[in-house]
C-alpha cells in the first residue's frame, strides 16, 4: 500500500466509527441534545454540551456507528439537512452561552438521498458555512477519519483545523471523484493518489493547522493539547480571532 492508501484505510477503520467513545475520552459529563427543533433528529450528527478540563464546551460530531443498524441509520456518517440544522442549533446555543465549540468530523459527505435533496441539503450547507464563519466563539475542528466535500466543510469553518495522522480531507470522496472524472467509482485508488487528501500535503498548503499522531488520543495528550489550544483562542479578542479565521480562508 502507498502512503495515501494507508491513510485512507486508517481513516476508514472501524475503531474510528463510534464518536461517542472519543467524546468520552476527551470530555466529561457529555449532555447530548437531540433534534433540530423543527423536523427530526438525525443520528449522523451528535451534538451537546460537555466539559473540557472543567470548563464548558459545545461538542458537535458526526457519527458512523459500530454496527450495521447504526450505520444504516446514520447513512455511514452522512448527515441530512436536519443534522446540519441540529449542528447549527447547538452552534447558536454555544454563541449565546459563550462556550467554545469543538467539532469532530468523520463523514464521507452529506447524504446524497432524494429526501435530503428535496429538504434543501445544499442550501442548508450554504447556511451553516455562512453562519459558522460569523460565530464569535472559538471553534476548533478535529478531523477524525474522513472529511469529504461541502458536507465536511459545513462543520469545519473554524479557527483551528486539526487532523489525525490517519485521516483525510478532500473536495469529494475518492469514489465520487472517480465517478465524476472517469464515470467509474472503481478507480477510487487512482483518484485518491491525484486528490492529495493526506494530512502531510494539506499542512504544507496551510489548509490545516496541525497533525495529531493517533497515540495522542490514547495517552491523554490530545486532551491536554485541546485544552491549551481552546485556552489560547479564548485569550484572543473576538475581532482578532474572527479576522484570523477570515484570513485563513481568504488566502485560497
Amino acid at each position, binding site marked *: 500500500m502507498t502512503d495515501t492508501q494507508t491513510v485512507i484505510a486508517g481513516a476508514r477503520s472501524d475503531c474510528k466509527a463510534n464518536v461517542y467513545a472519543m467524546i468520552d475520552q476527551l470530555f466529561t459529563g457529555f449532555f447530548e441534545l437531540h433534534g433540530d427543533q423543527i423536523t427530526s433528529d438525525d443520528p449522523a450528527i451528535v451534538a451537546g454540551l460537555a466539559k473540557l478540563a472543567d470548563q464548558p464546551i459545545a461538542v458537535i460530531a458526526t457519527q458512523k456507528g459500530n454496527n450495521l443498524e447504526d450505520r444504516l441509520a446514520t447513512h455511514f456518517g452522512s448527515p441530512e439537512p436536519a443534522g446540519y440544522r441540529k449542528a447549527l442549533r447547538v452552534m447558536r446555543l454555544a454563541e449565546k452561552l459563550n462556550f467554545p465549540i469543538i467539532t469532530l468530523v468523520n463523514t464521507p459527505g*452529506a*447524504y*446524497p*438521498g*432524494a429526501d*435530503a*435533496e*428535496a429538504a*434543501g*441539503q*445544499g*442550501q442548508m*450547507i*450554504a*447556511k451553516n*458555512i*455562512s453562519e459558522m*464563519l*460569523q460565530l464569535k466563539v472559538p471553534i476548533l475542528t478535529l478531523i477524525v477519519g474522513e472529511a469529504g*466535500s*461541502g458536507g465536511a*466543510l*459545513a462543520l469545519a*469553518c473554524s479557527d483551528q483545523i486539526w487532523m489525525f495522522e490517519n485521516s483525510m*480531507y*478532500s*473536495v*469529494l470522496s475518492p469514489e*465520487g*471523484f472517480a*465517478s*465524476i*472524472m472517469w464515470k467509474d467509482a472503481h478507480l477510487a485508488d487512482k483518484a485518491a493518489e*491525484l*486528490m*492529495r*487528501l493526506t494530512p502531510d500535503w*494539506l499542512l504544507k*498548503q496551510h*489548509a490545516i493547522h496541525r497533525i495529531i499522531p493517533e497515540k495522542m488520543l490514547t495517552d491523554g495528550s490530545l486532551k491536554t493539547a485541546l485544552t491549551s489550544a481552546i485556552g489560547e483562542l479564548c485569550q484572543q479578542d473576538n475581532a482578532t480571532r474572527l479576522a484570523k479565521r*477570515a484570513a485563513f*480562508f*481568504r488566502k*485560497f
Partner: protein
Amino acid sequence: MLFGEHVKRFSSRSVPKLKHDQAKVPSGIWQECPHCHAGFYFKKAGQYRVCPECGYGFRVTARRRLKMLTKHFEEWDSDLETRNPTEFPDYQRKIKKAQSATHLKDGVLTGKALIDDYPVALGIMDPLFIMGSLGTANGERLTRLFEKATEQQLPVIVLTASGGARMQEGIYSLMQMAKISQAVNDHGKAGLAYISVIMDPTTGGVTASFASQADVTLAEPKALYGFTGKRVIEQTINKQLPNDFQSVENGYQRGLIDEIVPREQLAQRLSQLLSILEAKKWGETQ
C-alpha cells in the same frame, strides 16, 4: 395507373440517400431542446437563445449572456488565471481549451454594470468553461466582486451556472466555498443587497455556498438547481427519479426560489427590484 404514380411519388428514400441529404444540412440549423426535446429551426430560439416550446434558456457563454442583459459593463480582474495548485496532470491543456471557447481566463465574468440606470456589481458564471466548475481563479474573481462591491457600496447580482467544485483543484476548490461565503457575509454586513439568478445547471459546491446565500433568489425557467447529481442519488437510493426532480420550478414549490424569470424579462425584473432596493430610505435627505 394513378395509384402506381402515387406510390412512386411518396415512396421513402433509401437510407444512404437520406444520410447523404442530411450531411448537406449545415450542423446547428436544426436544434433540439435538451429539456423538452422539441426540435426547431435554430433561429426560433431568438437572440435570447430560449426554447420556443418550453422556455428553457440554452447554456451560453458568459460574454453572450452579458449582452442579453446590459450594454454597459466595465470588466474587473479579467487576468486571473489558475496556477494548478494540486499539479493535476493534463489540467493546463484543459484550461487552454476552455479559455479559447469562452474568451475568459476562467469560468466567471465579473465587473461593474448598469441595469437600467442602476450601477451594480455583476458576476456571470460560464457553463462552457469546464462546466462552470469552481476553482481558485473564478473563486478569487467572485470574492473580489463582493469585496469591491462592499468598497463601492454596490448591490451584487450573480448569475450562477456550475457543475460544482473543480475536481482538478482538490481542497483549493473546497476552500473557495468558505472564501466566497466570507465575502458574501461582509457585503451583507455593510447593508448591501445580493441577488442570485440560478441558471442551468447550478449544482454541488456552488449550490452549497454563494448561489444559496442571496437575499433574493431568481431563476431561469427549467434550470437545474441541486446539490448532489441525480445519477449519484439514484445509485444511492436505488430508485429512478423524475426528470424535473431538481428543476427550479420544483425548487420554487419547495420555497427555495423567489421568482422564475424568463431570460428576456430578467433586465426588467432586476430593474424593478433595484428601484426598490436603491430607493432613498425613510428619513434620508438627498
